[in-house]
């Protein structure tokens, strides 16, 4: 059975011949019509449509967008801020950059609709420091949109106004964590805040209620207004609605980004048909389905899941639909949509050493388990690769990771420990084998470290 076709909603025009990121081109393709429509709707009605759509956040956690908006404290009398999380830093993820580079006005329209729906007067786009080009494009797009009265005071002849500011990060992964992002936006070190009490919906930016949404999520809002929440919810699968962008990288013949209805394509279809399968002479070994912090899947393993009617079904990695819930049931996550593929040329110890180096470098250092644990794990895998490996290192790695996950201020604790936990759990034989191989390779007379 051939793989289903892409359902390009966000990417409807992106990549089409002649389509540019100019305002004129966007308007010519029907741009800002949904803002015109939204501004005639009651804000509460828009929020209702978003709730009905079942839209889940595309940044990583998959939290329902409508629920998030529903949590905002609207009685505090304080201004409500909208913060766009464009700090796309999760290794393996490169969708938001594409949107901002090639269709910035779609994002701006999504922001303005969401701002109107939530009575937001100021919105901030926090863009990753390593994306200066994207920041310039956004700055120009916002200026053009302001000149055309889509952004700024009294938009489209109404009394409503909202300003959008672009704020560039300085290159830190942790700034993608929403409370770390808020701290950074306030001009401080991006130390994530403790929750409770600092839930952004109540005590966010400048201690005011704040909505933090991913770039792709806000773009979807535009399309929800266009087609209505109920119709949007028909796209995808129940509780996993809409489309999402999957970024495939690594050892496939045709890597890239693809927009599919959520859950309508399986891992096998995505990798073997859409991406052309493994490189010549290679076989797939492992895949990380949702950005490098998601737990790795090993080709060949199977998952027995409970069906709603009480029966169970068994899935191979290739069978897993690319949605939120099934991936979670298989012990990993859809995350940010970054699918990282590894074939049989990859040594898993070395791959983990690479991931651990990233997380040790990016740990903000605020809370103890992540700060010390991430570097410890890096030092262990680094030693295993470059010096000597011990048979017990796999278990030590797992134990260190277990001491981090669930005990930190923010989700970075899970982000840095899940790779180690899953690599050791699923490729424990390789860790053991690596140690044995190193042992025989050890020069004569070298001392054991312990």
């Amino acid at each position: 059975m051939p793989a289903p076709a892409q359902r390009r909603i966000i990417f409807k025009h992106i990549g089409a011949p002649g389509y540019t990121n100019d305002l004129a081109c966007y308007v010519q393709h029907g741009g800002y019509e949904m803002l015109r429509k939204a501004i005639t709707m009651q804000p509460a009605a828009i929020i209702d449509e978003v709730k009905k759509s079942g839209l889940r956040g595309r940044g990583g956690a998959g939290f329902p967008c409508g629920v998030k908006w529903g949590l905002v404290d609207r009685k505090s009398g304080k201004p409500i801020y909208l913060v766009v999380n464009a700090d796309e830093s999760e290794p393996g993820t490169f969708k938001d950059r594409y949107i901002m580079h090639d269709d910035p006005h779609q994002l701006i329209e999504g922001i303005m609709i969401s701002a109107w729906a939530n009575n937001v007067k100021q919105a901030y786009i926090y863009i990753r420091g390593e994306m200066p080009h994207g920041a310039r494009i956004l700055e120009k797009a916002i200026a053009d949109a302001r000149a055309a009265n889509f952004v700024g005071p009294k938009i489209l002849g109404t009394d409503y106004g909202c300003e959008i500011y672009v704020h560039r990060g300085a290159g830190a992964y942790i700034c993608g964590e929403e409370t770390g992002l808020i701290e950074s936006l306030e001009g401080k070190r991006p130390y994530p805040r403790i929750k409770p009490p600092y839930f952004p919906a109540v005590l966010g930016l400048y201690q005011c209620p704040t909505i933090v949404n991913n770039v792709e999520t806000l773009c979807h809002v535009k399309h929800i207004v266009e087609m209505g929440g109920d119709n949007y919810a028909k796209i995808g699968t129940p509780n996993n609605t809409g489309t999402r962008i999957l970024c495939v990288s690594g050892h496939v013949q045709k890597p890239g980004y693809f927009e599919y209805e959520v859950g309508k394509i399986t891992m096998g279809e995505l990798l073997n048909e859409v991406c052309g399968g493994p490189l010549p002479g290679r076989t797939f070994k492992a895949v990380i389905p949702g950005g490098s912090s998601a737990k790795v899947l090993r080709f060949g393993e199977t998952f027995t899941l409970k069906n709603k009617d009480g029966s169970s079904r068994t899935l191979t990695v290739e069978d897993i639909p690319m949605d939120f819930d099934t991936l979670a049931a298989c012990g990993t996550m859809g995350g940010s949509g970054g699918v990282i593929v590894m074939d049989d040329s990859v040594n898993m110890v070395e791959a983990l050493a690479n991931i651990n180096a990233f997380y040790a470098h990016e740990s903000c250092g605020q809370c103890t388990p992540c700060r010390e644990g991430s570097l410890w794990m890096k030092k262990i895998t680094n030693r295993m690769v470059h010096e000597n490996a011990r048979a017990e290192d796999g278990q030590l790695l797992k134990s260190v990771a277990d001491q981090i996950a669930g005990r930190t201020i923010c989700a970075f604790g899970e982000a840095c420990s899940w790779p180690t936990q899953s690599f050791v759990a699923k490729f424990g034989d390789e860790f053991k084998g690596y140690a044995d191989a190193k042992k025989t390779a050890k020069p004569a007379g070298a001392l054991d470290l312990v």
Partner: protein
Amino acid sequence: MIAPPKPDLVTVNIDGKEIAVPKGTNAIEAARLVGVDVPYYCYHPKLTIVGNCRMCLIEIGMPAVDPATKAPIMDPATGKQKINWIPRPQIGCATNASPGLHIRTQTPQIKDCREGVMEFLLVNHPLDCPICDQAGECKLQEQSTGYGRGYSRYIEQKNVKPKRTQLGPRVMLDDERCILCSRCIRFSKEIAKDDVLGFIDRGSYSTLTCYPGKKLENNYSLNTVDICPVGALTSTDFRFKMRVWFLKQTNSIDTESSVGANTVVWSREGQIYRITPRQNDGVNDTWMADSGRELYKQVKADTRLVSTTLDGRAAPLDAALKAAADLLAAGSVAVVGSGRSSVEEQFLTKKLAAALKAPAYLVSRVGEGDQLLISADKNPNIRGALVTGLIATLPAAKLAELAAHIDAGRIKTVVSVGEDLAVAGLTAAQLAKVAVVYLGTHANATSAAARVVIPTLTVFEKGGTFVNQQFRLQKFAKAVPGPAGATDDLAVLAKLAKVAATDLASVWTLLAAEVPALGTMSFANIPDTGLLLDATPFAGLPFVEGESLHYQPAAKVAATA
């Protein structure tokens, strides 16, 4: 079950023990009340909560209720209401008491959490306890003993960081020992209002430092040393001087201003090594100024008076007292008391003046307050002189009236209790015109000009009480013996005033009998945190203090009332 709590109290259950605590009390403090230790590093009751050390992880749960009917869901196994435990451990410092909150601190998961955090804190810690000044009062030592695994699995290289960074004139930083709890940063920002500390770099390489071009040199910098849970911040003055477990702790009071910060004096074998703040939530919380910590240096100062003299020559105490008594008996005497004397000494000074029918003066000492723990009145005990009746009004800036009396020949003898009359406004000619009986601790122009000099004790060498700006009666105790040759002020004053009471207890018997404000008290019964006296008799006096921690001037209180 305990009785239904008062309206502002909520009942929480900690390891099976129920207790009513004020709503919002955090889990660490609530557990403390039932004798359950929740270990922590970054939490400090007087600073904002950041929750970064993760040592205080606990399990929490709430009683289960049916979502629809709100009826309690019972657990058939126990017959009690079911508790919905949150699987993920929570930090105790940020968990506030709410009705029905259940806390578990002794589960395998929490044990594992604590062992994990302890292990993480130690992997890059230098473990140089044998040369570390914090040893003996180090939270890392205590809690690794109490909650750690006792062995290390770490075989990698430890991080290397700066070992000796002089953050300011009084504070030294060892970054390798630092566990990045950020207490010092929060203190500097929130209490000292001098936001000079911060972290640079990130992850495990995070390093505490001062902002470029700045120093940690505010007058509260040593509080960062006090609250540092490890040996990262040490006092330049105390560093490498003495092991803390050899030191005796004596409760005392900071005498540098009328704030009267509560202190602990740390001494060994008659020598004082350091002064640290003592918690008093009504006065100084857990803080004190750096300047007050150096006052112990006066004890061993070169100018210390250690010999009784008569007309400039060493003389036995008896002879000096006899000579002084003869001078006093001759009449035309004035008494200069001191706002630095204790309540007891001021009381005997008053009795001396009354017996001689001599006018009594006090020396004013006004400077700048810092709105925190140093007030404008540099006398620790002006209010004691008011309460005991030594003076009825606040002292004038200079002893102008006394000077006029001397010039007119009406005063022939002046008794000075520790005050340098030259500094207080008398000229050398005026000093030469009178016979001075000087009771004091250090040499100065007055002791040089005095007929009789009787060395007395510093605040560290005797007990007594002060009344601070809040009219709070606070006691201090003797930390070290006075030097040979010095006599207790009380004994000298009692002798001169011909009062039989020469020690604290007997003076207090007199005080209770003669001073109405102290009528029902005894020295022994004054609590360590002091006792507020009735200030209303003195409400009209123009006290010089401005607003400071836990203190508002009466005028401001009246204006806001």
